[in-house]
């Protein structure tokens, strides 16, 4: 039988809708009956600071000498009502991350690195440990819906208090720490049975809305003798209104966290589909502060996907007073290190994509509560890496500020920016590069 010529066929064509990730998620869901839980922030591409450029100086603006002239980076947070505001040497702080979600060594390293650069770290859902207090020269104490480990002694030994209303990874959601990470020490600190899947409350237990929050803040001030700055942190949901209401409630500082901001553990569907990106959130928060004539009086800290001095410079130019980093700081400590690739592979993932932080099996010893794994992280060396990273971000920030003729990084302004995409121009409220067009105006 003669062999018939096979008619030409198309090559296999994967579906854009049913891509490899989507298919794997459907199979995972069908096998378990439980939604996917992971750590980190939104992974899909969203409009971000990469879509903006700084213009630099030319005929109409004079640059500062890049390597010689002073460009100050310090910032004061909390002077509105607090008698002891925080004076940070750099406008980059370490975001709230809990002991329990992170190892004691990681918390210590964050404190060491931040303190070396004269900036603050932040506690998380689960209370304050002696280790992080002693290694952080400036420590912000989070006041969360769960109130795990919350006690007035820690409130008084903090340098500032952050009332957490929400976070960018999950505006409207509470914290989560699965049973694998509820070790005896974590359980004791949170007054929970060992091994429970701890799903924190998403609403504060004793206040609802900004009028109540105003009274709550007054209570916190009475207890701390009106010394400590009080921050209000919101996930980027409706940042214009949330910022205005936080100011009304008496905040010294407003923290706005965009959807790229990480979490220790949350449903994937929540991380990727609730909240807005950091870029438009900054613009909306600044708009609220300016309309209330509170810009620079109530400080704005923004977070969510900040990675470099360029991100910081653009956030400040849009009107922020400082930024917070979380995920980037963990990478500086040693998270996602390709040197651990074999171990990431054994966990079914790869360096750079590891996000099963909730399982507590982090080979880098960072997102774990397992004391043995935690031993893998040398807090002194990791702290030094974080210090170096913060130093580089600061040098980058100064480079960009000087190029725009600024002797203080807070002098960066929206006029120093242009957008590369129509979306970013619309969201950031700066002109599309090469035009004077701001969509919507």
């Amino acid at each position, binding site marked *: 039988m003669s062999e018939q010529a096979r008619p030409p066929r198309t090559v296999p064509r994967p579906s854009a809708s049913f891509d490899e990730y989507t298919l794997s998620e459907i199979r995972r869901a069908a096998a378990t009956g439980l939604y996917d839980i992971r750590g980190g922030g939104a992974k899909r591409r969203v409009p971000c600071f990469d879509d903006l450029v700084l213009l630099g100086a030319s005929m109409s603006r004079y640059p500062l000498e890049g390597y010689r002239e002073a460009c100050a980076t310090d910032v004061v947070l909390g002077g509105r009502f607090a008698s002891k505001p925080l004076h940070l040497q750099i406008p980059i702080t370490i975001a709230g991350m809990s002991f329990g979600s992170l190892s004691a060594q990681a918390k210590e390293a964050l404190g060491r690195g931040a303190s070396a650069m004269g900036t603050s770290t932040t506690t998380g859902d689960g209370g304050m440990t002696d280790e992080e207090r002693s290694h952080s020269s400036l420590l912000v104490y989070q006041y969360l819906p769960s109130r795990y480990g919350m006690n007035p002694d820690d409130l008084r030994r903090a340098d500032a208090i952050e009332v957490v209303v929400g976070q960018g990874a999950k505006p409207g959601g509470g914290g989560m720490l699965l049973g694998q990470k509820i070790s005896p020490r974590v359980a004791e600190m949170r*007054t929970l049975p060992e091994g429970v899947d701890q799903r924190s*409350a998403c609403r504060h237990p004793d206040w609802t809305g900004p009028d109540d929050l105003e*009274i709550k803040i007054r209570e916190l001030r009475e207890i701390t003798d009106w010394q400590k700055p009080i921050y209000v942190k919101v996930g980027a949901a409706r940042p214009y209104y949330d910022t205005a209401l936080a100011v009304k409630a008496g905040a010294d500082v407003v923290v706005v966290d965009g959807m790229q901001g990480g979490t220790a553990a949350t449903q994937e569907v929540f991380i990727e589909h609730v909240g807005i990106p950091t870029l438009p959130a900054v613009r909306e928060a600044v708009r609220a502060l300016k309309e209330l004539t509170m810009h620079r009086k109530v400080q704005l800290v923004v977070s969510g996907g900040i990675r470099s001095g360029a991100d910081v410079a653009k956030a400040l130019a849009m009107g922020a007073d400082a930024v917070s980093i979380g995920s980037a700081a963990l990478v500086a400590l040693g998270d996602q290190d390709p040197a651990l690739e074999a171990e990431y592979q054994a966990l079914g993932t790869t360096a750079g994509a590891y996000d099963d932080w909730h399982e507590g099996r982090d080979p880098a010893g960072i997102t774990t509560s397992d004391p043995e794994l935690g031993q893998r992280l040398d807090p002194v060396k990791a702290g030094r890496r974080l210090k170096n990273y913060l130093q580089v971000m600061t040098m980058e920030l100064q480079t960009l500020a000087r190029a725009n003729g600024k002797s203080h990084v807070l002098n960066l302004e929206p006029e120093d920016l242009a957008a590369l995409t129509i979306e970013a121009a619309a969201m950031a409220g700066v002109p599309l590069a090469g035009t004077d067009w701001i969509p919507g105006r």
Partner: protein
Amino acid sequence: MTLALNTELDVAALGLRQVNRALKATESGQFVVRNPKGAHALACGLQHPVEIEIDGPVGYYAAGMNQRAQITIHGNAGTGVAENMMSGTVRVRGNASQSAGATAHGGLLVIEGHASARCGISMKGVDIVVGGSVGHMAAFMGQAGRMVVLGDAGEGFGDSLYEARLYVRGTVAALGADCIAKEMREEHHSELAQLLTRAGLDADPSAFTRYGSARRLYNFEIDDPNAPEEPR
């Protein structure tokens, strides 16, 4: 500012901050606070074993985060009385609004009248005794400690409870998720009798029902499609 024993502090004359400052400044003694008139955050953040009588109704967060102080409120209390208390005793002679004793870690809170919604929400070790009834979602996510209700409990009682133990003499409108009635064993009768004695309230422990967590929500359920179907 040094204060003698039995000092009277007048909120109307001194203002809230001055009164709170005076209460915090002394390590022992007895105070009477006059004219509270619903002031918020009154007598909060105290750290020493002072005895305080508040002569009238208080606003939000009275006796908040209390440590060691003995505080009696002769009137009604607003939202969050004794919230996050660590130790000491707070007694409300009247009724209490929402979130009484919220997240409190220790000490004793006695409400001689009724308590509104979310009494004992996220309680973490406090003992709460309510002479009257409690509103909806009492002891929501209660982690540790004991709650005693001499009257009735509203809907969602003990919802998502962890290890707090609850005793109710009257009826429960509806139990919250994962909250169930449990057997009253000897140790529970004894514990309840002690709580009633400490609270100074007279009731027969045998008239109460104990409620606790069924512990079915402690961990997520992950299915195995290859496992045999459970009979319906």
